[in-house]
């Protein structure tokens, strides 16, 4: 008899081998191809082959970070299979990573021992994979479920406190997971009453893990138990488990790896920020120009309900901080009528930062929208039902994440709502107001065009800069901002959540929040400063500012605030750190231009570590820095400084 044909995955592996064999080769579509494959065995082999290959070669997009992301995998079972899957998934999403696998079943020791291999690896992301064997005693007694419950509780609390202490000590972002109960353990229960009790106490365990991910600093939880609803096949293969303590089948490992990669995206601030949507056959069914406003499909009956559902999902994204824009080849007046008047529209004109409806090229529109909003193209998602438009945007703007909404509209929502796409660690107050913030930014750029001299324009803006110590409300935003800011980021590095919170609470350090408002409205928290406060001198360890407020003198005003406070504290010297990265050229000029003197660089004696340049100024020598068009205000509500 004839053997079955090999899977299409072998073609994928051929491409991976070819890429690996030619060190200068680039296969820009390979990342996308890997991302859309669900064959865990193929992706596992691809991940093994891709060790040492950079993401740029799979995506065709230049890398953002100078060093790979350090990711540790610490598991209570044999999780070796997760590592290649994680590598393949991260690379396909454009993230280079060094992945460290801890010895199996030493999770607590690795977390608590400051000299463990895990501690020495100094991961930015620590994945703590747990299976039921870590929590459920092998000899658990179905006739004493209350006793089992007590043990579960104790072990779960032990893990959570070890993880929380580790996150605080190291500043690493930690991912826990909810633990699915294997069939063998469920099957051992005879009575329906006891099965319900076991289900309940097991859920209590998972709820404790989820609560840790809701509230503990630096600790997050992947809900693996829920992810399994979309994985075909069993949680574990009893043969692999008995033979080698492999607790997850490759498909489960892949589902986990994808969630973990989404977490890494969130940690590195790579979640997308703007969703650009087509209209005809995307946000509604039919063609507006042909069918008319009354003829388009929306509402409660298939296929109209698919489009209505997509609109609801997209509105939910908007409420979580994703910016929405329309880019449609359409008649503008008709579009405006439908957006504001059609009774079945969920999305309304105010939900969008921009509504573009004309007959120009969409790739040009997306590019100019990026410029107007002052966001990188790698923040953009483009969703369209036309393969032509999708192909054009993909070709001309490879950084844009293109979602092809051809085919049955029942799939539209799921295609747009990929977990990794818009991934964020937490939500901040600014997220929910972002649409109006950015609409203000577009108005500013029009206002800008109406004023001839820059200084006239800036004076007319009435800019107010408020600086003060971080508080509970501004800290999440500052942590997020330091991660996300690439251009005006003095060192290109982030302190992370745990260290930032320590800095904010310490008398020897400070974290400052910078807020900017002008006649168009408040921008919210747009900048942060991480400081050492020594007796004689203060050190600006990092200073980040959102690029949307650059070139208005805000950065000088912030330095003024710091200098004023340092003088009040009787310091005489202000020092500042700078480390050049691929993207932070806009920040390089600030210290030299404001009277700071360079003390030394990477090759000099003064450098602390790679590439760091130290600047210093005597506080007596510093001139007035705040430009005359800015009002600088101090916000000292919670007095630390």
């Amino acid at each position, binding site marked *: *008899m*004839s*053997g*079955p*044909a*090999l*899977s299409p995955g*072998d073609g994928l*592996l051929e491409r991976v081998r070819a890429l690996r064999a030619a060190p200068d080769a680039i296969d820009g579509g390979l990342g996308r191809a890997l991302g859309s494959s669900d064959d865990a*065995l193929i992706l*596992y*082999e691809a991940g*093994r*082959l891709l060790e040492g290959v950079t993401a740029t070669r799979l995506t065709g997009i230049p890398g953002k970070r100078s060093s790979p992301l350090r990711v540790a995998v610490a598991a209570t079972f044999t999780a*070796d*299979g997760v590592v290649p899957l994680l590598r393949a998934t991260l690379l396909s999403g454009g993230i280079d990573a060094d992945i460290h696998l801890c010895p199996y079943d030493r999770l607590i020791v690795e977390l608590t021992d400051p000299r463990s291999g895990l501690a020495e690896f100094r991961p930015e992301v620590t994945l703590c994979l747990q299976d039921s064997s870590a929590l459920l005693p092998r000899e658990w007694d179905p006739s004493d479920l209350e006793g089992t419950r007590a043990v579960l509780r104790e072990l779960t609390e032990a893990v959570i406190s070890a993880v929380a202490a580790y996150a605080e000590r190291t500043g690493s972002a930690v991912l826990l997971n909810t633990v699915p109960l294997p069939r063998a353990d469920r099957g051992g229960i005879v009575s329906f009453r006891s099965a319900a009790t076991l289900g309940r106490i097991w859920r209590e365990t998972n709820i404790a893990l989820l609560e840790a991910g809701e509230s503990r600093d630096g600790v997050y939880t992947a809900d693996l138990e829920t992810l399994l609803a979309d994985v075909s096949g069993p949680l574990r*293969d009893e*043969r*692999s488990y008995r*033979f*080698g303590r*492999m607790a997850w*089948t*490759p498909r489960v490992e892949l589902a986990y790896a994808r969630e973990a990669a989404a977490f890494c995206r969130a940690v590195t601030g790579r979640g997308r920020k703007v969703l650009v949507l087509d209209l005809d056959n995307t946000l509604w069914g039919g063609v507006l120009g042909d069918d008319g406003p009354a003829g388009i499909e929306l509402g409660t009956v298939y296929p109209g309900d698919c489009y209505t559902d997509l609109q609801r999902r997209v509105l939910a994204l908007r409420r979580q901080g994703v910016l929405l824009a329309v880019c449609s080849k359409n008649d503008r007046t008709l579009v405006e009528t439908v957006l504001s008047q059609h009774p079945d529209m969920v999305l309304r004109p105010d939900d969008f930062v921009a509504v573009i409806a004309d007959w120009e090229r969409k790739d040009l529109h997306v590019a100019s929208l990026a410029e107007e909003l002052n966001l990188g193209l790698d923040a953009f998602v483009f969703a369209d039902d036309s393969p032509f438009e999708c192909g054009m945007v993909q070709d001309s703007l490879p950084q844009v994440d293109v979602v092809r909404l051809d085919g049955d509209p029942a799939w539209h929502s799921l295609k747009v709502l990929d977990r990794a796409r818009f991934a964020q660690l937490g939500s901040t107050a600014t997220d929910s107001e972002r649409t109006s913030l950015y609409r203000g930014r577009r108005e500013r750029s029009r206002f800008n065009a109406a004023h001839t001299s820059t200084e006239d324009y800036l004076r007319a803006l009435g800019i107010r800069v408020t600086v003060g110590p971080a508080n509970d409300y501004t800290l999440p935003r500052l942590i997020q901002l330091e991660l996300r800011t690439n251009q005006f980021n003095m060192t290109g590095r982030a302190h992370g959540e745990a260290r930032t919170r320590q800095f904010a609470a310490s008398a020897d350090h400070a974290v400052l929040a910078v807020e900017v408002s002008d006649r168009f409205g408040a921008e919210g928290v747009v900048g942060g400063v991480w400081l050492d406060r020594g007796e004689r001198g203060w050190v600006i360890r990092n200073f980040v500012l959102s690029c949307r407020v650059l070139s208005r003198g805000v950065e000088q005003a912030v330095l003024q605030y710091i200098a004023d406070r340092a003088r009040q504290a009787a310091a005489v010297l202000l020092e500042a750190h700078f480390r050049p990265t691929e993207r932070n050229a806009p920040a390089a000029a600030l210290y030299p231009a404001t009277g700071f003197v360079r003390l030394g660089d990477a090759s000099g004696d003064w450098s602390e570590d790679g590439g760091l340049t130290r600047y210093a100024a005597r506080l007596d020598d510093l001139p007035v820095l705040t430009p005359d068009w800015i009002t600088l205000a101090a916000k000292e509500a919670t007095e630390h400084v």
Partner: protein
Amino acid sequence: MSDVLSTLRTLVGRVTQRPADRLESESRLAGLVGWGSLAAMHLLAAVEQTYRVQLDLRSYMRFETVGELAAEISNLLAAAPPEDAG
């Protein structure tokens, strides 16, 4: 060469990272660089996924050569031809 053997050589090549044409029916699995318990479990999963058969781990672990494993797969396929292979 049988089709099963030809496909199996590709699968073994996958998990041990070598071209299929460098594997023979007589190639000893334990002698291949890259062979180990993880490679063995991934080969097992790949064989079972490709042929929709299930092997007994005890007999699987006794097979020494690519050819022996191919013969076992052929036997399983002959005993219960899967309806949806391919």
